[in-house]
């Protein structure tokens, strides 16, 4: 009779955690982030959806009115103006990307004191948006402002940029482009450090220079920087709140509002407190952002797959 060495059917006691360590640990590390992200981001999104179905002043009883707030938005001209302004912001703000790229190319050289020049160009991004807004508001002042005085030198009449309903939004966007360009510049400067000198050398041997060199050799290598610049600029355009608040307060007669500002005015400002209506605007803004968020996530996902 031989005793075959059977495998030990009763392995040494191991705790539940030890047995599942590999599966559980990542979730443990993620837990704080997931908790706070859901409490402060995910849940409020759904709350906004549900509040947008009510007529509520934030104090008394909330009346369920279904899609009433959205129906009202359809006929609200102030909302329409805000929506168009948001679009203007999105389109014009993207100018920061090429502008930032060209300043970066210009500064990407070795000259004595180049670091100082780079810092000076980056300076506007360090300034608070409030300061930028104030400085530009003074610059635009109809009589005393620098702009009007400069125009007077070349014989042009004074313009009241921020008081003119047609120009005001562009005036604010220009103020926003100043720091945003600096931001894109710094992204491209770091990107340019990573450009492969051998490829540039090879291209040069093949006779590429100037625009062709830029377009076919440099810019493709700057793709990661362009992607980040695109992301931060889109986000910057959609949360353009402080400049508007400082420079025009949404005026003249509401012509420079964007969705975020309009939402604030309707729900949280001195005369607001239509929580449901504000939430409905927030939902619309969220849906617009969702388009971009989905695109960013999709391209990041594609990037990761390509990496494998």
């Amino acid at each position: 009779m031989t005793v075959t060495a059977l495998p030990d059917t009763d392995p040494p006691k191991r705790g539940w955690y030890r047995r599942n360590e590999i599966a559980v640990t990542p979730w443990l590390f993620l837990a704080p982030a997931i908790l706070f992200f859901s409490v402060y981001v995910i849940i409020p999104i759904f709350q906004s959806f549900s509040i947008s179905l009510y007529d509520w002043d934030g104090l008394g009883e909330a009346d369920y009115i279904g899609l009433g707030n959205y129906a009202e938005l359809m006929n609200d001209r102030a909302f329409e103006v805000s929506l168009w302004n948001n679009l203007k912001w999105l389109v014009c703000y993207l100018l920061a990307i090429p502008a930032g790229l060209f300043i970066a190319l210009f500064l990407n050289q070795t000259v004595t004191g180049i670091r100082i020049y780079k810092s000076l160009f980056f300076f506007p991004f360090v300034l608070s948006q409030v300061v930028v807004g104030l400085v530009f508001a003074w610059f635009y002042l109809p009589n005393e402002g620098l702009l009007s005085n400069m125009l007077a030198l070349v014989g042009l009449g004074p313009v009241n940029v921020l008081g003119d309903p047609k120009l005001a939004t562009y005036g604010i966007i220009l103020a926003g482009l100043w720091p945003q360009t600096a931001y894109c510049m710094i992204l491209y400067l770091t990107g340019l450090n990573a450009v492969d000198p051998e490829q540039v050398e090879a291209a040069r041997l093949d006779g590429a220079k100037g625009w062709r060199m830029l377009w076919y050799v440099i810019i493709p290598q700057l793709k990661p920087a362009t992607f980040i610049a695109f992301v931060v600029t889109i986000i910057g355009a959609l949360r353009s709140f402080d400049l508007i608040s400082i420079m025009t307060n949404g005026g003249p007669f509401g012509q420079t509002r964007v969705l975020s500002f309009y939402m604030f005015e309707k729900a949280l400002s001195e005369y607001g407190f239509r929580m449901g209506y504000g939430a409905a605007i927030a939902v619309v803004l969220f849906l617009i952002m969702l388009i971009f968020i989905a695109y960013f996530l999709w391209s990041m996902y594609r990037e990761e797959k390509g990496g494998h």
Partner: protein
Amino acid sequence: MRSTLKASGLALTAALAASSAFAQDSSLSGDLKIFLDTSNPAPRATMEAMIERFGEMHPDLNIETTVIDREAYKTQIRNFLTADAPDVATWYAANRMRPYVEAGLFEDVSDLWAEPAIAENLASTKSAMTIDGKQWGVPYTYYQWGVYYRKDLYDQFGLTEPATFDEMKSNCQTLLDNGVKCYTIGTKFLWTAGGWFDYLNLRTHGYDFHMEMAAGEVPWTDDRVRQTFANWRELIDMGAYVDNHQNYSWQEALPFMVNGDAAAYLMGNFAVAPLREAGLSDDQLDFYQFPAINPDVALAEDAPTDTFHIPSNATNKDAARAFLRFVVSAEEQSIINNGENLGQLPVNASASIDDDKFLEQGFAMLSSNSPGGVAQFFDRDFPAEMAAEAMQGFQEFMVIPDNLDDILARLEQVRERVYK
């Protein structure tokens, strides 16, 4: 057994507290939390000194004062009234307090108004504190509105204080012919235009019509409303107002008057202090009541009132009531409203008015030459939402008067929704 003892003990203390409140003695104790929106330096110091005097009278009372930025207060009040209520809070009279009254967040203080000391001396502001036949707080200061003007400029061009709309326009024409704008105004934050609408409407159709509008009973497209705007348009078409006013806050519009580019300012009495600080002497600066437009209409004025309230969720309501009594007493009213402090009008009829020509003129105007009534201000009389849309419309009208039909149609839409 123990718990019944405890309960009766509590009842006893409550009874004691109630009786001590009636006796108005100095046995107040516990904590008294006061929230103030008087964040500007002078009002802040005034309020803090006043609270200190109250504290000296009640040494056992632990007073905790919180001063919140005046603008931030307007949104924070909604949070702290529901969540962490103080015992006393500042706010504004009339429609501005209605949301909190209707939400049950302000304590009914009609009992205070029944006390002879208050009933007899504060009668003039009682209506502004009354909603549904009850009083919801006490006023602590108010101030007149009117036209502050450069007397030296008027003298230079041989002008006198106008009493009628025609005189007002002819004065204005003289000033314009001499390269001086008639009125400075800064409409960036919209409410200043509300003051002009108030006065033009009060003078064209009177107090009762104005209040019917505030109550939503008159369509914005009504011909009478159009009449008010037609009067306004006469001034706009003359070029009476400074250019580009949509860019300026009310403070940024002051230099036009200080530099002599504009001759007058329709404003509240708070404009006097910065004008004096900017170097205008009392010989250069003077005040007149907004002139009559329709001679058949009784004159009525704007006089915004600032108030103290007890939140319903307050914990030390006896001390809070004692504080409210203290604030409106003739003695305190004389002190806090004098020229060194708030520089405004006391709400207590027995208080003394400071020796200041603007306060004296304002007091005389409000007490004897305002038979039509006293309004609060556009954004305090009209519901917040209506006021916000309307003031934006006023600004648009002042910049592009041709848009009037469009503006009125829009306001009418809002009216139909707000007062449904």
